[in-house]
C-alpha cells in the first residue's frame, strides 16, 4: 500500500480553489462533477429526465470526469514511477470501519454510493458543485447543503464506529 505524496492541505486547497476559478473564467461554466453521471445515463436511458437537453448536450461533463480519472492515473505514475497497479486496498481507517469480507464490504460501498448519487441530485450538487464552486458564489443553498453534507458524514461515520465497537 502506497499513496501519493500529500501536499499540505492549504496548498492543495488553494490549488483546487484556483482551478475552480480558472474553470469558470476559461469555460464560463460552473464547475461540477455529479451532473456528469446524468450525462452518462443520457447515452443509454430513454427516461425523459435524462433525455433533457441539459444532459443530451453538455458532453463536456463526461470529458471532465474522464480527465479526473486520467489525473489520478498520472499522479500515481509521476509520484511512484513503475509502481502503478490495480488493487482492492482501502487503508487502515476503513479496514476498522467496514467488514473484512470483500463481498459484504462492496455491498455496503454500493449502498453508500447509491445514497450519495441520489442525495447529490436531490441536493442539487456534490462536494465540487455545491461546496467548492457554490459557496464562493455566495450561494446560500450551497452553504446550507455543504453544512448538511458534513452533518450526514459525521452521523454516518460516528454511528458506524460505535456499532463496530459494540
Amino acid at each position, binding site marked *: 500500500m502506497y499513496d501519493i505524496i*500529500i*501536499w499540505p*492541505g492549504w496548498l*492543495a*486547497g488553494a*490549488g*483546487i*480553489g484556483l*482551478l*475552480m*476559478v480558472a474553470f*469558470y*473564467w*476559461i469555460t*464560463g461554466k460552473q*464547475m461540477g462533477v455529479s451532473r456528469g*453521471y446524468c450525462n452518462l*445515463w443520457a447515452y443509454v436511458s430513454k*427516461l425523459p429526465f435524462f433525455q433533457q437537453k441539459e444532459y443530451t448536450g453538455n458532453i463536456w461533463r463526461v*470529458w*471532465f470526469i*474522464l*480527465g*479526473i*480519472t486520467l*489525473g489520478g*492515473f498520472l*499522479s500515481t505514475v509521476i*509520484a511512484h514511477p513503475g509502481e502503478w497497479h490495480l488493487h*482492492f486496498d482501502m487503508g*487502515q*481507517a*476503513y479496514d476498522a470501519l467496514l467488514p473484512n469480507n470483500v463481498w459484504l464490504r*462492496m455491498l*455496503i*460501498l454500493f449502498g453508500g*454510493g447509491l*445514497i*450519495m*448519487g*441520489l*442525495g*447529490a*441530485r*436531490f*441536493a442539487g450538487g*456534490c462536494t465540487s458543485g455545491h461546496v467548492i464552486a457554490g*459557496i*464562493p*458564489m455566495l450561494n*446560500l443553498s450551497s452553504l*446550507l*447543503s455543504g453544512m*448538511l*453534507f458534513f452533518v*450526514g*458524514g459525521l452521523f*454516518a*461515520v460516528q454511528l*458506524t464506529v460505535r456499532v463496530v465497537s459494540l
Partner: protein
Amino acid sequence: MNNIVFLVLGTVFGLLLSLAGATTFDFYAQLFLLENPQLARVIFTAVVVGTVGIWLMKRVHARSVMTGEPISFEKKGLQRGWVIGALMFGAGWGITGSCPGSAPAMLGEGKLIVIPSLLGVMVGTYLYGWIESRRIGGCK
C-alpha cells in the same frame, strides 16, 4: 477541441485531488472522526481562494475565454427534498470514503475498491432520473 479543454481541466483537478489526499480513503474517515484536519483544510482553503477569485471576476466583469460571452453567475435555488438529499449525500460520502469527484481519480490510481461506490452513484443517479421522469411524464 472544446472537449479537450475540459479533459485537461479534469486532469488538473484529478492531480490536485490526489495531492490533496482526497483520493486517500483514510482521510475521509479521519475527517468525520475529527482526527485529522487534512481534508477540512483543503476544503476551507479552496473555498477562501475561490471566494476571492469569484469576487475578482465579478468586479472586472470577466468574459469567458472560450465563448467571449460575459460570465453569468447564476445562483442555484433550493429544490424539493434538498435537506434529506444533502444528509443522504453526506452519509454516503462518509461511508464510501469518496465523493463523485474524487472517485474517478481513485479509479485512475488503480483503487478498484471504488468501483462498487461508483456503480452505486450511477444507480442512485438513475433512481433520481426515474422518480423525476414519473413526475414530468405523469402516468408512465
